[in-house]
């Protein structure tokens, strides 16, 4: 068994020469086609370098255009030369000038001998194809493409649209069914000879000369007519990114390529000296490889495409700046909670919650004079400052950063009407936000304050209207955050289920029962305070229906035991 190689080179001819030389040295015939557009001096150098090998042929140079039939024509020329001059070959391997063999030819031949009369060519019907960029698959075969996709994209697209609208369709020759697949194949001599000597070939060639990207269709289609057994996969490791541009391998991919056990890889970066040195020199310590397994490489490529097209959610940085609605919905990278009013009802609420749940609970991050981080730190993760001015310069970025910098640790913070309010819309629109509001709780510290009543009344009025605007913003139909609003009277009447609800949200798996709660502020006389506000002309409706007595109805005494249900 002998494999013959066809090598299509366009540029970096010295690398193509290196690869061709290594095959020729192993007594494998190589037929080389060099793009007429390649540099003539380089071509002369290449010919001189390979002159020592009697089993290397060069075919007449054609100018190759991407996506045009010229590449197929060059392949056919080379195949005919190979079959004519080297009649002892049993299989023909099509490679490009930027391919690099990763395993010795002997291993390839060994592998092929285990699959007698089998053609390794990816050949998939147009309905099954998933990789085509631009959505053209069957239409490659039925439309006309006189304009260059690379140079005149607009005209190309417009002409495709026009043909679609007019319902134009070329006739596909009888006896063939369109198939697509990777350009790089390895066919048996019998199949290749049969394709080339098909009496209907002139008709096929005429037809394919107008098909778009025929190098991915010509052999892939005709092989279905002539092959005995088809293994629909390529022995060449060749992958494309989301733009349809081939992935390139560099020196640092050495281990990855070695472990892939693929026979040939493309494209190799022409300056990847390390790869060429490693794979072209015989390695005496080499152990024979197994079945080709590019899965690990594919996984890395898939992850990279994902990063390029979807990116890391909740990250805003120099090369990711989502401005369009669909992507703005997830503003932060992880869920977080906002507590409004709780700290007014319970002294030391944030410390209690932090200890209880083991998550991070900040004070008022949007406090007007200073950012109150957990533990009143002056700087926080990621070197975030506690300066209110720095924060207010871009309050949204402040929160995005905070959540990004603390990945893996749930963040909560306190919020209220005395805080900087500009963040409200951001919170409401962020699906990662869980917002728990007890309205009117701001009245408790006012009730305890020693300020004169006239001032208290004015502050209460201001807080109430700020809070009302905030809650209204949360209740907008466009809100994506999870939120829950209670008024103070409701909350005080039965705080346990509410706290339990909040805790469950913070710590879903734990299902911990609430056995003790933080100390509630003293509300003796609070009902009278509320009435007094009313008497002074301010209606504290956000507090809820707070009775004149010390406790809202239903809860008779402050000593009611907190029993867990």
């Amino acid at each position, binding site marked *: 068994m002998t494999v013959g190689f066809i090598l299509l080179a366009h540029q970096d001819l010295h690398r193509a020469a290196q690869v061709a030389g290594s095959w020729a040295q192993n007594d494998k015939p190589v037929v080389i086609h060099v793009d007429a557009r390649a540099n003539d001096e380089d071509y002369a150098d290449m010919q001189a370098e390979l002159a020592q090998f009697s089993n290397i042929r060069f075919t007449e140079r054609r100018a190759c255009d991407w996506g045009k039939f010229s590449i197929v024509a060059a392949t056919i020329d080379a195949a005919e030369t190979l079959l004519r001059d080297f009649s002892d070959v049993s299989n023909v391997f099509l490679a490009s000038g930027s391919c690099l063999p990763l395993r010795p030819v002997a291993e390839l031949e060994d592998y092929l001998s285990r699959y007698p009369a089998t053609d390794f060519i990816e050949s998939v019907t147009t309905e099954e194809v998933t990789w085509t960029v631009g959505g053209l698959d069957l239409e490659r075969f039925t439309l006309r493409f006189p304009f260059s996709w690379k140079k005149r994209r607009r005209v190309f697209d417009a002409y495709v649209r026009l043909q679609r609208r007019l319902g134009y369709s070329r006739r596909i020759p009888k006896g063939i069914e369109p198939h697509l697949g990777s350009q790089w194949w390895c066919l048996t001599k019998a199949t290749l000879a049969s394709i080339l000597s098909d009496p209907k070939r002139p008709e096929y060639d005429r037809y394919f000369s107008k098909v778009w990207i025929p190098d991915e269709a010509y052999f892939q289609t005709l092989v279905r007519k002539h092959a005995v057994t088809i293994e629909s996969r390529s022995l060449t490791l060749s992958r494309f990114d989301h733009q349809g541009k081939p992935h390139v391998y560099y020196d640092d991919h050495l281990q990855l390529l070695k472990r892939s056990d693929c026979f040939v890889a493309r494209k190799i970066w022409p300056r990847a000296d390390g790869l060429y040195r490693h794979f072209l020199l015989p390695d005496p310590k080499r152990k024979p490889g197994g079945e080709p397994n590019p899965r690990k490489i594919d996984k890395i490529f898939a992850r990279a495409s994902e990063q390029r097209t979807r990116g890391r959610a909740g990250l805003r940085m120099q090369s990711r700046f989502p401005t369009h609605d669909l992507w703005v919905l997830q503003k932060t990278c992880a869920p977080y909670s906002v507590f409004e009013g709780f700290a007014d009802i319970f002294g030391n609420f944030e410390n209690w919650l932090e200890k209880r749940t083991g998550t991070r609970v900040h004070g008022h991050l949007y406090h007007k004079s200073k950012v109150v981080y957990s533990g009143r730190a002056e700087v926080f993760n990621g*070197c975030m*400052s506690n300066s209110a001015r720095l924060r207010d310069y871009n309050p949204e970025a402040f929160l995005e950063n905070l959540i990004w910098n603390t990945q893996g640790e749930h963040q909560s913070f306190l919020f209220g009407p005395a805080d900087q309010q500009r963040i409200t819309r951001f919170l409401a629109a962020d699906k990662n936000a869980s917002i728990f509001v007890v309205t009117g709780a701001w009245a408790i510290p006012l009730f305890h304050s020693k300020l004169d009543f006239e001032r208290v009344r004015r502050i209460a009025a201001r807080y109430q209207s700020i809070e009302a605007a905030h809650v209204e913003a949360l209740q907008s139909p466009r809100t994506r955050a999870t939120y829950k609003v209670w008024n103070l009277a409701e909350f005080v009447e039965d705080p346990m289920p509410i706290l339990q609800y909040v805790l469950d949200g913070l710590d879903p798996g734990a299902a911990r029962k609430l056995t003790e709660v933080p100390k509630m502020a003293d509300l003796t006389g609070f009902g009278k305070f509320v009435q007094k506000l009313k008497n002074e002309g301010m209606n504290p409706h956000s507090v809820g229906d707070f009775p004149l007595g010390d406790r809202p109805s239903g809860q008779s005494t402050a000593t009611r035991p907190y029993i867990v249900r």
Partner: protein
Amino acid sequence: MGVLGTYRLRLERKRKRVRSLRKKRELSVVSDRTRQIAPDDVLLFCTLRNERVRLPFFLDYYRKMGIRHFLFVDNDSDDGSREYLCEQEDISVWHTSGSYKRAKFGVDWLNALQSRYGVGRWNLVVDVDEFFVFPFCDSRPIQALTDWLDASSTKSFGAMLIDMYPRGPLDEAQYHEGQNPFEVAEYFDSGNYTLSRNPTYGNLWIQGGARARAFFASEPRRAPALNKIPLVKWSRGNVYISSTHMLLPRGLNLVYDEWGGEKPSGALLHAKFMKTFREKSEEELVRKQHFANSHEYRAYSKGLKDSPSLWCRWSEKYINWRQLEILGLMSKGSWV
């Protein structure tokens, strides 16, 4: 942006070009080796003044990266910088005693040189204290990046400025000639940057980092811009507008994805905050040759008196580009 706005930008670009051609007359050639430049060389353009101590490591760093030719504008150094550069085989040097400020902080001079020597090649424009980092820069030369960008039909590459600083007071961080500056200044702020979009030029405006935290907490708006586009495949008619923060035509500023994806990007490690910095900022205050009436340098001068150290307990110690990527400061996009 309407037709009128586009036309206005076009006029601005033309004006900048004419201006740079006029400013070119301020340059006199000292050492011209530009004939060595090959068609696919990546070129480095740089303006400097009295940076002799930093030069050996700087040149070494960029030669290893794959820079084949350096083009320097020397703004009247008197510490031997010019003589040192002239000795190097791969460097061309121009001299000027013109005003740095009136040459738009060096941009006019470099625009002129770039339109003469940079067209059709990848141009890297950096200061002597800026060290370019890009994905895989520890295992691939810069040509790997530029080849890939060419294949992706991308003409510009963004790299935000990251201010590096030492652990202790700046005055104690002594830098020695030839030394890697990031052995001295090895820390940076990882997560306090803010971004907004400049509607006129389409670029992002990035602020934050150690400088905003330590010097501009009371006036965040005046904190220095950290967005940079230092690597551009230069075409005739390109112009940098202010430093390397943005350029025209506007398309070159779109180094970011607006649909949620990440384009590839790098970083410029900024080795400014060391012992030399205080002397430099006092000198610059006297020279008044910097942006916004050297407001920045006044803030430094004041800030340094209050707190001589930029380090805090959350400061991140620099390891490599992968660390920067994990932290979300740069991205390899779909390049693997």
